[in-house]
């Protein structure tokens, strides 16, 4: 009878203890998981013993709702044993001692294999179209009104005898949007060099400033007008966001540029810049991949390059076959994504049915961690 009572009222130990080297990490980490107890407990304690040590050391206390612990205070290559203790008031119930386990760093993140497959596939697609473009195959690209307006905008500034203001965004050189902006700046600088129009490029980032300077200088040299290049017109202002916005607003109001370009990465200052430009009566062409700033530019500017159009601009303006080929690759990439979205949605719906559960494996493959 006493044994029967003990059987019913003694706290059961945690079961299904699973201890393994944490996958896809830089080492020094072991993951411990166990089956959560059905009865209510206060907490779980995780104990660890290294090989050659006599006693277990407490390495973590978890609330009753948790059933997994990552021990990141271990030495790579050293063998460890673990046990989990369920605690309920004064009662304690220990699990069995785990199998020996040791941590090690990994050389490949298997959870990113889907990204690798995607990048390889998309790169192959791009290279295929670039190869075709190299062979001289004519490729069609749709018209982008914002980029068609560049020539008109430069011409207008020349006729009015006013400068062109080019803002290469507020991002650093690490932002691809900034690099795309500098590519467009090169094309715009070539046009201003040909028309002898003043080009003002205020910068927020010192590295972007130095690159923008070189891009403009090279562009002027490439069209045979190095004499027309004025280094003082490509300048650094400040790296403070709103101080930069205030300074650019000042330039707009004082110099009254005929055309304003806003290309690159922008944050809250986007509307401050674009609205001030609109009040001065300038033609404004903007382009950004910052989704939250796009509505502001669409509202306040005459033309806006939305997202990917910013990256397409350099190819569109230069009309170089190799760059145009890559645009075609991008378009086909989008087509593939669209197809995957449709198929994935169907799989997700079907996976709710028991006989189509295996679709979940395919869906999991596409989830990025």
């Amino acid at each position, binding site marked *: 009878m006493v044994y029967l009572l003990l059987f019913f009222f003694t706290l059961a130990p945690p079961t299904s203890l699973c201890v393994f080297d944490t996958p896809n990490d830089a080492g020094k980490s072991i993951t411990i998981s166990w089956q959560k107890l059905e009865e209510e407990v206060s907490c779980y304690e995780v104990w660890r013993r290294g090989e050659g040590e006599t006693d277990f050391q407490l390495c973590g206390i978890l609330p009753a709702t948790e059933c997994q612990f990552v021990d990141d205070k271990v030495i790579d290559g050293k063998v460890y044993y673990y046990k989990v203790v369920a605690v309920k008031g004064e009662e304690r119930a220990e699990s069995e001692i785990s199998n020996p386990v040791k941590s090690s760093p990994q050389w*490949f993140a298997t959870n990113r294999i889907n990204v690798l497959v995607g990048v390889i596939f998309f790169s192959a697609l791009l290279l295929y179209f670039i190869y075709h473009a190299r062979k001289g195959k004519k490729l069609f690209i749709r018209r982008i009104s914002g980029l068609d307006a560049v020539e008109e905008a430069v011409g207008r500034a020349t006729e009015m005898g006013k400068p062109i203001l080019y803002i290469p965004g507020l991002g650093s050189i690490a932002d691809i949007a900034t*690099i795309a902006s500098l590519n467009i700046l090169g094309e715009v600088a070539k046009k201003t060099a040909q028309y002898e129009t003043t080009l003002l490029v205020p910068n927020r980032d010192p590295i972007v400033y130095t690159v923008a300077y070189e891009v403009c200088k090279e562009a002027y040299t490439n069209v045979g007008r190095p004499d027309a290049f004025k280094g003082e017109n490509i300048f650094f202002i400040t790296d403070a966001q709103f101080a930069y916005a205030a300074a650019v607003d*000042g330039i707009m109001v004082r110099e009254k540029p005929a055309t304003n370009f806003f290309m690159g990465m922008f944050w809250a200052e986007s509307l401050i810049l674009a609205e001030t430009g609109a009040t001065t009566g300038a033609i404004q062409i903007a382009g950004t991949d910052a989704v939250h700033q796009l509505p502001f530019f669409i509202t306040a500017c005459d033309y806006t390059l939305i997202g990917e159009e910013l*990256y397409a601009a350099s190819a569109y303006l230069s009309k*170089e076959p190799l760059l145009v080929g890559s645009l075609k690759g991008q378009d086909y990439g989008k087509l593939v994504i669209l197809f995957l979205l449709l198929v994935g949605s169907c799989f997700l719906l079907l996976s709710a049915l028991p006989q189509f559960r295996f679709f979940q494996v395919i869906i999991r493959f596409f989830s990025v961690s």
Partner: protein
Amino acid sequence: MARTLPLALCFIMGVLMACQFFIPHPLSQSFLDLIIKWVRIISAFALALGVRSVTLRHYERIKRRKGEWGFSVVTIVSLLATALIGLIWGVGAKSYLRLIFSNIMVPLGATMFSILAFYMASAAYRAFRARTKEATLLLIASFIVMLGMVPIGTAISPRLSDLAEWLLSVPNMAAKRGIMFGVALGVIATSLKIILGIERGWLGGRR
């Protein structure tokens, strides 16, 4: 050589950084840390060039008495004074430099930021003028969203906030994701073109 070396460096670093993303090993992490340190060092040198640019630009304006050159005097004096104060009294939590930052830079930045509210009102007026079918749709959608997000909207109809939430999380989110897909592909394509040396705009020319 002046062009080949940057292109070769760009290719090597581009490939290494792309591989780094897939390698969690500590060697890969320490390589990334090293690159980040290098970027900081280069930024420090570039900042010196930036300060030179500011100083020269404003010095020229003062020398030629060009436009509102008085502002240039204020800029140069502020630049020198701030640098000297930082060098003499340090940059600690209770330093004069921090005092300048907290009492001049922060309020000025906040002032510029607050101006955004007025610009938003004027931009909204322009955007919501129902001249076309699209603008009318935008006006109606924004009216529902704005009303659904404030207590008075829920007081008018409890369904209004649900409708606003639906507009944000379904049609708005779908458009956002569409743009983001395009951006992601654009980023990969641009990166690949730069790594392979097809896109050379950042070097100032193509060939």
